[in-house]
């Protein structure tokens, strides 16, 4: 077996995995608190990418240097995606907190359809080239064939988010409130926790992560259209479920498993069935571990 080839595929798998992870983290974060699959999470990623592109283009056409425009574009993308995230929660999910989970999921599908077509109608259906905003890091010169600066940033962000979110949830007061809301929202409310604020905050940081993902990943891929969020969103969703939805470490693990499966599947079998491998792994894992790799199976109380 060719070791070099194996390593290259491993690296490809990790690259994909890190991209999925960046989005899956937001997915799982929201799920952890309100047990809702935010089907529209991918759309927040897409909106982040579009906002970033618009701002970056505005700035670059007026001759502002790329690093500054990258920073400003990312910040504005974060602001907008978070605002969309919070607004979506208020409009489409909050009124449904007490109803069946199925209703909330269908509402989320509605949000996803709405946002995709919103961008399609008001922007364009064509692919737009996304400017390469990320400067080339000099220290990457020796390995530039394998690792781009965007990839390095994606890895760093994934790691930062994983660590940051974990600290937030485990060790801060807000985190305690989040966990309380997750376990028993009624009880949390009685104890003086403003669950509305907690939930809004969760959507805010989840969407912010998606926006950063949108800008970074689009810089890496080089083009965007209204549909990118749906495709990546589904994969991130699969990754989150694979790892055990609701678990932060699980989301990252699931993403890397998914990325590696796709990469090795492509490398050693055929790229024809790339997506098939992803879903087969999902079904196999859920058959043996119905709550995912790191998910805790909940005991149902009667």
């Amino acid at each position: 077996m060719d070791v070099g080839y194996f390593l290259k595929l491993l690296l490809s798998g990790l690259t994909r995995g890190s991209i999925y992870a960046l989005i899956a983290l937001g997915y799982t974060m929201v799920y952890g608190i309100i047990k809702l699959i935010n089907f529209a999470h991918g759309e927040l990623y897409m909106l982040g990418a579009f906002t970033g592109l618009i701002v970056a283009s505005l700035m670059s056409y007026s001759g502002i240097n790329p690093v500054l425009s990258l920073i400003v574009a990312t910040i504005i993308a974060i602001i907008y995606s978070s605002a969309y995230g919070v607004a979506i929660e208020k409009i489409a999910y909050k009124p449904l907190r007490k109803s069946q989970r199925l209703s909330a999921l269908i509402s989320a599908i509605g949000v996803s359809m709405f946002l995709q077509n919103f961008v399609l109608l008001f922007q364009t259906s064509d692919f737009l080239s996304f400017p390469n905003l990320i400067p080339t890091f000099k220290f990457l010169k020796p390995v530039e064939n394998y690792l781009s600066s965007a990839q390095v940033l994606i890895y760093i962000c994934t790691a930062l988010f994983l660590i940051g979110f974990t600290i937030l949830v485990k060790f801060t007061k807000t985190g305690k409130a989040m966990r309380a809301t997750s376990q028993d929202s009624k009880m949390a409310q009685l104890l003086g926790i403003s669950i509305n604020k907690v939930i809004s905050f969760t959507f805010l940081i989840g969407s912010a992560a998606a926006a950063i993902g949108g800008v970074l990943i689009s810089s890496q891929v080089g083009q965007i259209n209204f549909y990118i969020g749906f495709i990546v969103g589904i994969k991130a969703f699969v990754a989150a479920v694979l790892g055990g939805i609701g678990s932060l470490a699980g989301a990252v693990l699931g993403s890397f498993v998914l990325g590696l499966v796709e990469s090795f599947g492509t490398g050693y079998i055929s790229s024809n069935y790339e997506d098939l491998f992803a879903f087969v792994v999902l079904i196999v894992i859920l058959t043996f571990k119905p709550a995912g790799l790191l998910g805790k199976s909940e005991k149902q109380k009667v």
Partner: protein
Amino acid sequence: MKIKGLLVTLLALVLLAGCAKDSKDAPIKIGVPGAQSGDLASYGIPTVRAVEIYAELWNKKGGVLGRQIQVLAEDESCKPELATNVAAKLVGEKVDGIIGHICSGTTKAAMGIYRDAKIVAITPSATSNDLTDSGEYPNFFRAIAKDSFQAVTAAKLVSSLGFKQVAILHDKGDYGKSFATAVKDILEKEGNVKVTLFDGITVGAVDYSAILNKVGGAGAEAVVFGGYHPEASKLVTQMKKSNMDIAFISDDGVKDDTFIQVAKEFAEGVYATGPQDTSSSTMAQEAIKLHEEKYGEKPGAFFLNACAAIESLLKAIEIAGTTDYDAVRKALQSNKFDTTLGKIGFSQTGDPIGVEFTPFQVVNGKYVEVKY
């Protein structure tokens, strides 16, 4: 109440439908079905415009056989299930000819309906081999060369560039895959060039490094890709970024200026096959000018093919002296027409004669014809 109202409306509709006469002064109706909304609208709208421009031109000259031309544009968003409904509508309208459909899938879905209703259809853009090779649709013609022709050009280019080992990729779609398969078959038959990898990529994936590693591992000197420009530009960008310096050869779906605009500097040196560039001919220039005057922008994809299609159809009706199906069909097959694509004719199976493919290469941000 409601039922009564509905009944009245229905009755009125029936009566109205009965009123339409098949008289000699009635306009000649040309149906233009295709994608006019949704994400593929940019492929369908230029055709509608082409037909409208030509209808206007002919109408000014007094129409065809003294009858005015009426254009009926119908949208099917490139969805087969909508295409059959649209086809039913056009058949119900008793159209005399069809310019369309745009996508191969919808063309396959609708062509049977036109065949049974005895209506001639000329597509400006559906290139699937089956449409003519199957022999199922005697009413079908096209003003674009079929996929396998394109593959011949691409295969010839591969051998003339002196590659010994190539990897062939496709986007798993109807268009890309049949192109890729045809290239593979030709190369394997000729035996000079070895196909070391044949695989499909997933549209919309965020990263293609795994498949590109595979291409590298297979020792390919060139990649032949069947598909459209978004995937092509992602592949090319990623190849260049990781310093994979091998040639990239693709099809008409990539021979689109959008590809260069999206892939930017990475597009440099990419080969793509496309229909011979006839846009410098006087007829084409005229059509483009009319389009710019009427719509205030440059025409889009397949505009010249659509112009050629409508021109041939109208001339054939004129030659036949009637809109009768058999006569028009015969006129199309036995005559040559001066069109925006040059002098073209149609074979017995409906494929165009005189519409050739040539290879192009991106040089300094523009597609230029390459000699081989």
